[in-house]
């Protein structure tokens, strides 16, 4: 039976205290939620357990024995397996190679391809991924890759499993599979740490919770009987019920129903049917759908990222051949893939904020620090490199970059992926603020509850649901609910493919 105990774990990166004297213990077969805002130290904790970061102080005790986790290999030898939010999969290798990468079975000296295949199939069948066994990982959809990351942990027979944000890109049916596996491991006595921002999953999967705030442990308790509001208050350090109330009292300022943008017969990449959409000024459009049905293709196409695009803007025809032209016409685009498409990681916050205004539009933006403060970016100085911030704060900087361009159309492709609940709420209120000033917002999210939060509290809004590159349903007003979205995501008579 394996147990895990952490005693006084402390870690700092430069002046930033990532973890401060964190102690807790987990019994065999327990599933513990680790919950906290961005920058609260959850990922640092996962990295220390996985051996990719060393604690400055503190001890890790496995099954009663103090252990030294000095490298990922050492962690694996102890049976500590960590799934990573950034994914540890290599796109150029096949699915089955990835699964057993560090200990590929051999026959004499050579890789035993047959055994790799057999062992991989056993795990892949559980996640309905068996037909991909010999495909390169790069050809899988994002949610399938996250499932694979989980499968990769599973195949290593973990004694202690740390699941870091694996579900943030998964859909309901995927999460159910993950949950089934977690329960099975639990029955086998495996200790599990489950890190997620989705509250309903925590309640559904975990039995106890450890809450972190700014690197310190706030509370460890059984989950049963703890209210959602209590959790959120503990995480943010303030009473959330007030915050939520405030954001629900939105001013009913109906912008005239002036159509700003008309898109006709736009073929999205990878789909044969085309899509048409009218976007009104000051409107918020939430985009829902099962993963890979053209949601991100839609916003990316509108930003001319998928080749030239023609549309009608203010009644005149408009042709955009590249993102630069889109920016000059007042389009803004925020991607959920911060690392690749959002931030200039080693440049300062100021430079990141001014990237579009100063460099593309050629107007000197003098209010950069001001907008960083307005977005409540947790920073020491505006000159620190952006990579020293947590994911949520980085995304706020990117949002600040685009809002200072005074955009007419704001396109967001799952911008809150991996961002904590409070920061999410802030992002939503920024969207409302933009829309109130006349900007149209098109917002894609893989989390339908987020879309409900975003659109229900703003009157001039709707949710469109996409399937196979087409808009199959539009929800407005009271019809917007997570259940309704889930119901319409799969068209009647259609099957999940």
């Amino acid at each position, binding site marked *: 039976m394996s147990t895990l105990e952490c005693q006084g774990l402390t870690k700092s990166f430069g002046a930033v205290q990532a973890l401060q004297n964190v102690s807790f213990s987990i019994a065999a077969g327990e599933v513990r939620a680790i919950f906290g805002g961005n920058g609260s130290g959850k990922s640092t904790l996962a990295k220390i357990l996985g051996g990719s970061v060393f604690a400055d102080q503190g001890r890790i005790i496995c099954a009663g024995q103090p252990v030294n986790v000095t490298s990922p290999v050492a962690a694996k030898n102890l049976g500590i397996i960590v799934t990573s939010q950034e994914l*540890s999969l290599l796109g150029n*290798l096949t699915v089955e190679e990835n699964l057993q990468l560090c200990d590929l079975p051999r026959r004499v000296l050579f890789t035993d391809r047959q055994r790799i295949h057999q062992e991989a199939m056993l795990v892949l069948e559980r996640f309905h991924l068996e037909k991909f066994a010999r495909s390169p990982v790069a050809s899988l*959809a994002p949610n399938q890759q996250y499932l694979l990351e989980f499968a990769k942990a599973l195949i290593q027979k973990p004694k202690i499993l740390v699941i870091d944000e694996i579900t943030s890109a998964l859909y309901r049916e995927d999460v159910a599979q993950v949950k089934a596996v977690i329960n099975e491991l639990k029955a086998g006595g495996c200790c599990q740490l489950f890190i997620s921002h989705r509250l309903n999953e925590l309640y559904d999967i975990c039995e106890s919770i450890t809450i972190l705030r700014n690197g310190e442990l706030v509370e460890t308790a059984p989950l049963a009987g703890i209210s959602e509001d209590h959790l959120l208050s503990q995480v943010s350090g303030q009473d959330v019920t007030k915050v939520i109330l405030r954001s629900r009292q939105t001013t009913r300022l109906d912008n005239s129903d002036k159509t700003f943008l008309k898109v006709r017969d736009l073929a999205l990449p990878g789909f044969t049917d085309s899509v048409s959409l009218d976007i009104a000024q000051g409107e918020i459009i939430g985009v829902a759908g099962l993963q890979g049905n053209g949601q991100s293709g839609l916003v990316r196409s509108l930003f001319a990222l998928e080749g030239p695009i023609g549309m009608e803007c203010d009644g005149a025809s408009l042709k955009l051949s590249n993102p630069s032209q889109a920016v000059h016409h007042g389009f803004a685009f925020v991607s959920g893939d911060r690392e690749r498409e959002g931030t200039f990681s080693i440049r300062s916050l100021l430079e990141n904020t001014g990237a579009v205004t100063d460099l593309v539009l050629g107007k000197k933006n003098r209010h950069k620090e001001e907008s960083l403060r307005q977005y409540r970016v947790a920073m020491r100085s505006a000159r620190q490199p952006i990579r020293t911030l947590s994911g949520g704060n980085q995304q706020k900087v990117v949002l600040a970059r685009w809002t200072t361009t005074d955009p007419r159309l704001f396109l967001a492709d799952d911008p809150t992926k991996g961002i904590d609940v409070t920061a999410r709420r802030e992002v939503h209120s920024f969207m409302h603020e933009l829309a109130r000033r006349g900007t149209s917002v098109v917002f894609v999210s893989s989390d339908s509850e987020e879309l409900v939060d975003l659109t229900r509290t703003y009157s001039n809004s709707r949710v469109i649901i996409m399937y196979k590159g087409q808009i199959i349903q539009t929800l407005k007003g009271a019809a917007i609910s997570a259940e309704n979205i889930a119901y319409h995501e799969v068209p009647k008579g259609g099957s999940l493919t």
Partner: protein
Amino acid sequence: MSKRLLSRLANSPQLPVIVLAVAFFCWNALTLRGFFTPASLREFLNLMVPLGCLTIGSSMVLVTGGLDLSVGAVVCLVNVTVITLMGKNYGFSLAAAIGVGMLAALGIGLLNGLVVGYLRINALLATFATQSVAAGAALWIMPRPGGRGSTAMVKWFKSGWLAGVIPTSALFLLIPLVIWYLIRATPFGVWLYAVGQDEQKAFLSGIRTRGVKLMAYVFSALMAGLGSIALLGNIGGGDPNVGMSLTLSAMASTVIGGVSLAGGEGDALGALIGAVFFNLIIYTVFGANLSVFYQDLATGLIILLGIVGMTLYKQHNVRKRRDFTG
């Protein structure tokens, strides 16, 4: 069977280089008098073997996302070591001299691997420095061209046959290829590609990335050593500068052969075909009766064509794959 082979070929990342090599081969065969004769083809093979060895070695380093600028200097170092040891001052036998020469190559390979893999110094700078070290050592051992190798070996290399069917010089390509694909068939072969794709992720997955890189540089240096022996079979003498121009030719051939400079992609056979293409165009330009002033220009333009063609083809493939997944 042949249908499957064709479709595999059509989807292969090496398609452009295969097309280019075949096209230039046919062009040469049609336009150059005496090119398509057994004697001339044998000569072509003999001359391309040294570059071929180097590209096979380089391809492994490039697959790990690295870069080896020292291979040409290793060719020089091995060349002067062997010739000097066979000279009358030392009187080594051919085999013993080659053995010591290969040890020198191994030394440079280990140095590269330790500096790049373990000290994590940028490969471009590290191997640029070790190139100077090896070239400097070669000049120190033999300040000016001279010395003679074994005439028997030159004869064996240039016109010998194994079992009556395999040209002896082809052995210098077959052995490295076999070693490469044997390595590819071990877990280590998978790790090479993992490290080249993303070193951090490979490390997090429990791969000993430093060891993988070390081995790649050692392999590259040993193949450069083998290339030097093949060169000795062609020229039979010592020259401290003999291999310097091979470094970048090997790199260009490797890239034309479909190995990505960014790592994680391509293999030895493609790189070797790149080297064949490289040598074919030298014949083409030579045979076109161009003034000597334009030969480099023409060669350069064709190489540029090869590299650009390869890169565009890959970008096209990536786009195709992305469209497929939506």
